[in-house]
Protein backbone atom coordinates (compact mmCIF):
# COMPACT_ATOMS: atom_id res chain seq x y z
CA UNK A 1 0.00 0.00 0.00
CA UNK A 2 1.26 3.46 0.85
CA UNK A 3 5.00 3.93 1.21
CA UNK A 4 6.32 6.86 3.21
CA UNK A 5 9.57 8.60 4.06
CA UNK A 6 9.80 9.78 7.65
CA UNK A 7 12.61 12.34 7.87
CA UNK A 8 14.22 14.04 10.84
CA UNK A 9 16.25 17.18 10.43
CA UNK A 10 19.23 18.46 12.43
CA UNK A 11 18.33 16.63 15.61
CA UNK A 12 20.93 16.43 18.37
CA UNK A 13 20.00 13.29 20.29
CA UNK A 14 20.50 12.91 24.01
CA UNK A 15 21.81 9.55 25.21
CA UNK A 16 19.12 7.72 27.16
CA UNK A 17 19.18 4.44 29.02
CA UNK A 18 16.52 1.86 28.23
CA UNK A 19 13.12 2.24 29.92
CA UNK A 20 13.61 5.91 30.72
CA UNK A 21 11.53 8.69 29.25
CA UNK A 22 12.95 10.19 26.08
CA UNK A 23 12.57 13.96 26.01
CA UNK A 24 10.99 15.97 23.22
CA UNK A 25 13.27 16.92 20.31
CA UNK A 26 16.13 14.80 21.73
CA UNK A 27 15.55 11.65 19.68
CA UNK A 28 15.32 10.96 15.97
CA UNK A 29 11.72 9.86 15.63
CA UNK A 30 8.96 7.63 16.83
CA UNK A 31 6.75 5.67 14.47
CA UNK A 32 3.47 4.45 15.90
CA UNK A 33 0.57 2.63 14.30
CA UNK A 34 -2.48 4.80 13.67
CA UNK A 35 -4.88 2.25 15.15
CA UNK A 36 -4.95 -1.13 16.87
CA UNK A 37 -4.67 -3.13 13.66
CA UNK A 38 -2.30 -1.06 11.52
CA UNK A 39 0.68 -2.99 10.20
CA UNK A 40 3.87 -1.14 9.29
CA UNK A 41 6.97 -2.45 7.54
CA UNK A 42 10.26 -0.57 8.00
CA UNK A 43 12.58 -1.06 5.07
CA UNK A 44 15.35 1.51 5.45
CA UNK A 45 17.07 3.70 8.03
CA UNK A 46 19.62 6.39 7.22
CA UNK A 47 21.41 8.91 9.42
CA UNK A 48 24.05 11.41 8.34
CA UNK A 49 26.14 13.30 10.85
CA UNK A 50 26.24 17.09 11.02
CA UNK A 51 28.17 17.61 14.23
CA UNK A 52 30.83 20.30 14.51
CA UNK A 53 32.82 18.43 17.13
CA UNK A 54 35.18 15.71 15.94
CA UNK A 55 34.27 13.58 18.93
CA UNK A 56 30.60 12.85 18.39
CA UNK A 57 30.21 9.07 18.65
CA UNK A 58 26.49 8.37 18.56
CA UNK A 59 25.11 5.00 19.55
CA UNK A 60 21.83 5.08 17.69
CA UNK A 61 19.31 2.34 18.33
CA UNK A 62 16.13 1.43 16.50
CA UNK A 63 14.00 -0.33 19.09
CA UNK A 64 10.45 -1.13 20.05
CA UNK A 65 9.04 0.98 22.85
CA UNK A 66 7.84 -0.34 26.20
CA UNK A 67 5.97 2.93 26.76
CA UNK A 68 4.35 4.51 23.73
CA UNK A 69 4.12 8.20 22.97
CA UNK A 70 0.91 10.13 23.56
CA UNK A 71 -0.18 13.43 22.01
CA UNK A 72 2.66 13.22 19.53
CA UNK A 73 3.68 16.24 17.46
CA UNK A 74 5.95 16.33 14.45
CA UNK A 75 8.74 18.47 15.91
CA UNK A 76 11.73 18.14 13.58
CA UNK A 77 10.19 15.25 11.61
CA UNK A 78 8.15 15.04 8.44
CA UNK A 79 6.33 12.12 6.90
CA UNK A 80 5.69 12.21 3.17
CA UNK A 81 4.29 9.77 0.64
CA UNK A 82 7.02 8.43 -1.63
CA UNK A 83 4.69 8.30 -4.59
CA UNK A 84 3.83 11.85 -5.66
CA UNK A 85 0.66 10.58 -7.29
CA UNK A 86 -0.34 8.43 -4.34
CA UNK A 87 -3.30 9.04 -2.07
CA UNK A 88 -2.87 8.72 1.68
CA UNK A 89 -5.02 6.07 3.34
CA UNK A 90 -7.78 7.19 5.70
CA UNK A 91 -5.68 6.45 8.75
CA UNK A 92 -1.97 7.15 8.71
CA UNK A 93 0.83 6.34 11.12
CA UNK A 94 1.63 8.61 14.05
CA UNK A 95 5.10 10.12 13.63
CA UNK A 96 7.15 12.77 15.40
CA UNK A 97 9.91 13.47 17.89
CA UNK A 98 7.97 15.47 20.43
CA UNK A 99 5.09 14.43 22.67
CA UNK A 100 3.25 15.11 25.87
CA UNK A 101 4.17 11.61 26.98
CA UNK A 102 7.38 10.58 25.29
CA UNK A 103 8.22 6.94 24.65
CA UNK A 104 10.52 4.66 26.60
CA UNK A 105 12.79 2.31 24.68
CA UNK A 106 12.33 -1.35 25.54
CA UNK A 107 15.24 -2.92 27.39
CA UNK A 108 15.02 -6.12 25.36
CA UNK A 109 13.47 -5.29 21.99
CA UNK A 110 16.35 -3.52 20.28
CA UNK A 111 16.14 -4.12 16.54
CA UNK A 112 19.11 -2.36 15.03
CA UNK A 113 22.27 -0.73 16.43
CA UNK A 114 23.87 1.93 14.28
CA UNK A 115 26.95 3.38 15.97
CA UNK A 116 28.69 6.17 14.09
CA UNK A 117 30.55 9.41 14.57
CA UNK A 118 28.21 12.28 13.75
CA UNK A 119 31.25 14.31 12.73
CA UNK A 120 31.21 13.42 9.04
CA UNK A 121 30.00 9.84 9.46
CA UNK A 122 26.88 8.27 8.03
CA UNK A 123 24.98 5.01 8.41
CA UNK A 124 22.48 3.35 6.15
CA UNK A 125 20.62 0.08 6.54
CA UNK A 126 18.05 -1.37 4.22
CA UNK A 127 16.20 -4.65 4.10
CA UNK A 128 15.61 -6.88 1.12
CA UNK A 129 11.91 -6.73 0.09
CA UNK A 130 10.05 -9.25 2.22
CA UNK A 131 12.62 -9.00 5.02
CA UNK A 132 11.46 -5.73 6.56
CA UNK A 133 10.98 -4.99 10.25
CA UNK A 134 7.31 -5.40 11.18
CA UNK A 135 5.23 -3.58 13.71
CA UNK A 136 1.54 -4.06 14.40
CA UNK A 137 -1.10 -2.02 16.20
CA UNK A 138 -0.28 0.95 18.41
CA UNK A 139 0.39 -0.60 21.81
CA UNK A 140 3.55 -1.19 23.79
CA UNK A 141 6.25 -3.60 22.60
CA UNK A 142 4.67 -4.15 19.19
CA UNK A 143 3.02 -1.00 17.90
CA UNK A 144 5.72 1.64 18.18
CA UNK A 145 9.37 1.93 17.18
CA UNK A 146 11.75 4.75 17.99
CA UNK A 147 15.20 5.81 16.83
CA UNK A 148 17.21 7.24 19.69
CA UNK A 149 20.67 7.43 21.22
CA UNK A 150 21.76 4.84 23.74
CA UNK A 151 23.84 5.53 26.82
CA UNK A 152 27.48 6.27 26.06
CA UNK A 153 29.19 8.44 23.51
CA UNK A 154 28.49 12.11 22.95
CA UNK A 155 25.81 12.20 20.25
CA UNK A 156 26.05 14.97 17.71
CA UNK A 157 23.60 16.63 15.34
CA UNK A 158 22.28 14.45 12.54
CA UNK A 159 19.57 14.22 9.92
CA UNK A 160 18.15 11.13 8.32
CA UNK A 161 15.14 9.18 7.21
CA UNK A 162 13.16 6.01 7.72
CA UNK A 163 11.30 4.43 4.83
CA UNK A 164 8.17 2.59 5.88
CA UNK A 165 5.07 1.12 4.36
CA UNK A 166 1.53 0.93 5.68
CA UNK A 167 0.29 -2.54 4.83
Amino acid at each position, binding site marked *: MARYSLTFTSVTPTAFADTTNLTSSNYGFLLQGGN*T*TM*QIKISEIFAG*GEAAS*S*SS*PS*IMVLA*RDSTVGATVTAGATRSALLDATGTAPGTTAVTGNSATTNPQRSAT*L*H*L*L*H*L*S*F*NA*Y*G*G*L*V*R*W*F*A*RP*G*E*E*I*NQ*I*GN*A*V*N*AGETSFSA*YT*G*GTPGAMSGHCLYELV
Partner: protein
Amino acid sequence: MASKRSHEGYLLIDHTDSPGVPDSLSVPAGLPAGAGRGKFECPTLTCQHCDVVVLVNPKRNRERAWCKHCDHYLCDACGVELHHTGECRNASKRIAEYLAAVERGEHPLILR
Protein backbone atom coordinates in the same frame (compact mmCIF):
# COMPACT_ATOMS: atom_id res chain seq x y z
CA MET B 1 15.84 -20.29 -7.91
CA ALA B 2 16.37 -17.96 -4.97
CA SER B 3 19.40 -18.57 -2.78
CA LYS B 4 19.61 -18.01 0.95
CA ARG B 5 21.64 -14.89 0.20
CA SER B 6 18.62 -13.41 -1.54
CA HIS B 7 17.25 -12.64 1.95
CA GLU B 8 20.15 -10.35 2.79
CA GLY B 9 19.85 -6.66 3.54
CA TYR B 10 22.75 -4.24 3.63
CA LEU B 11 24.44 -2.08 6.24
CA LEU B 12 26.85 0.75 5.45
CA ILE B 13 28.74 2.71 8.09
CA ASP B 14 30.90 5.26 6.32
CA HIS B 15 33.62 7.09 8.24
CA THR B 16 35.71 7.86 5.17
CA ASP B 17 35.69 11.54 6.09
CA SER B 18 35.33 11.14 9.83
CA PRO B 19 37.51 10.07 12.77
CA GLY B 20 35.04 7.23 13.34
CA VAL B 21 34.24 5.57 16.63
CA PRO B 22 36.56 3.48 18.82
CA ASP B 23 36.06 -0.26 19.25
CA SER B 24 35.18 0.39 22.89
CA LEU B 25 31.89 1.86 21.67
CA SER B 26 31.23 -0.06 18.45
CA VAL B 27 31.93 -3.60 19.68
CA PRO B 28 29.42 -3.46 22.59
CA ALA B 29 26.85 -2.29 20.01
CA GLY B 30 27.30 -5.59 18.18
CA LEU B 31 29.69 -4.44 15.48
CA PRO B 32 32.95 -6.23 14.71
CA ALA B 33 36.27 -4.73 15.76
CA GLY B 34 37.40 -2.07 13.31
CA ALA B 35 33.89 -1.41 12.01
CA GLY B 36 34.05 2.13 13.36
CA ARG B 37 36.93 3.09 11.06
CA GLY B 38 36.82 3.86 7.35
CA LYS B 39 34.03 2.31 5.33
CA PHE B 40 32.27 -0.73 6.76
CA GLU B 41 29.82 -2.70 4.63
CA CYS B 42 28.04 -5.81 5.74
CA PRO B 43 25.13 -8.01 4.69
CA THR B 44 22.33 -8.29 7.24
CA LEU B 45 19.54 -10.71 7.98
CA THR B 46 16.21 -9.89 9.57
CA CYS B 47 15.17 -12.64 11.97
CA GLN B 48 11.70 -13.68 10.84
CA HIS B 49 10.72 -14.73 14.34
CA CYS B 50 11.50 -11.47 16.19
CA ASP B 51 12.51 -8.89 13.53
CA VAL B 52 15.95 -8.29 15.02
CA VAL B 53 18.51 -7.31 12.39
CA VAL B 54 21.61 -9.52 12.53
CA LEU B 55 24.95 -8.64 10.94
CA VAL B 56 26.24 -11.56 8.92
CA ASN B 57 29.75 -12.40 10.08
CA PRO B 58 31.47 -14.06 7.13
CA LYS B 59 34.04 -15.65 9.45
CA ARG B 60 31.45 -17.40 11.58
CA ASN B 61 31.86 -21.16 11.46
CA ARG B 62 29.19 -22.07 13.98
CA GLU B 63 25.88 -23.18 12.52
CA ARG B 64 23.42 -20.36 11.82
CA ALA B 65 19.87 -21.09 12.94
CA TRP B 66 17.48 -21.78 10.09
CA CYS B 67 13.74 -22.35 10.22
CA LYS B 68 12.71 -24.93 7.66
CA HIS B 69 9.05 -23.98 8.14
CA CYS B 70 9.34 -20.35 7.05
CA ASP B 71 12.57 -20.89 5.11
CA HIS B 72 14.49 -18.09 6.82
CA TYR B 73 17.56 -17.56 8.96
CA LEU B 74 16.90 -16.75 12.63
CA CYS B 75 18.84 -14.88 15.28
CA ASP B 76 20.61 -17.07 17.84
CA ALA B 77 17.99 -16.49 20.55
CA CYS B 78 15.11 -17.52 18.30
CA GLY B 79 17.20 -20.44 17.04
CA VAL B 80 17.46 -21.77 20.59
CA GLU B 81 13.72 -21.30 21.08
CA LEU B 82 12.97 -23.10 17.82
CA HIS B 83 15.24 -25.94 18.89
CA HIS B 84 13.31 -26.32 22.16
CA THR B 85 9.76 -25.84 20.88
CA GLY B 86 9.95 -26.84 17.23
CA GLU B 87 7.41 -24.10 16.60
CA CYS B 88 7.72 -21.55 13.81
CA ARG B 89 6.79 -18.06 15.03
CA ASN B 90 7.29 -16.05 11.88
CA ALA B 91 5.96 -12.54 11.37
CA SER B 92 2.84 -13.48 9.45
CA LYS B 93 1.79 -15.97 12.15
CA ARG B 94 2.44 -13.48 14.96
CA ILE B 95 0.50 -10.77 13.16
CA ALA B 96 -2.41 -13.10 12.41
CA GLU B 97 -2.55 -14.11 16.10
CA TYR B 98 -2.39 -10.47 17.13
CA LEU B 99 -5.23 -9.44 14.82
CA ALA B 100 -7.37 -12.37 15.96
CA ALA B 101 -6.82 -11.37 19.58
CA VAL B 102 -7.72 -7.74 18.85
CA GLU B 103 -10.91 -8.98 17.19
CA ARG B 104 -11.74 -10.89 20.39
CA GLY B 105 -11.26 -7.67 22.35
CA GLU B 106 -8.06 -8.80 24.00
CA HIS B 107 -4.84 -6.79 24.33
CA PRO B 108 -2.21 -9.20 23.08
CA LEU B 109 1.54 -9.01 23.47
CA ILE B 110 2.93 -10.95 20.57
CA LEU B 111 6.62 -10.47 21.08
CA ARG B 112 8.85 -12.67 23.14
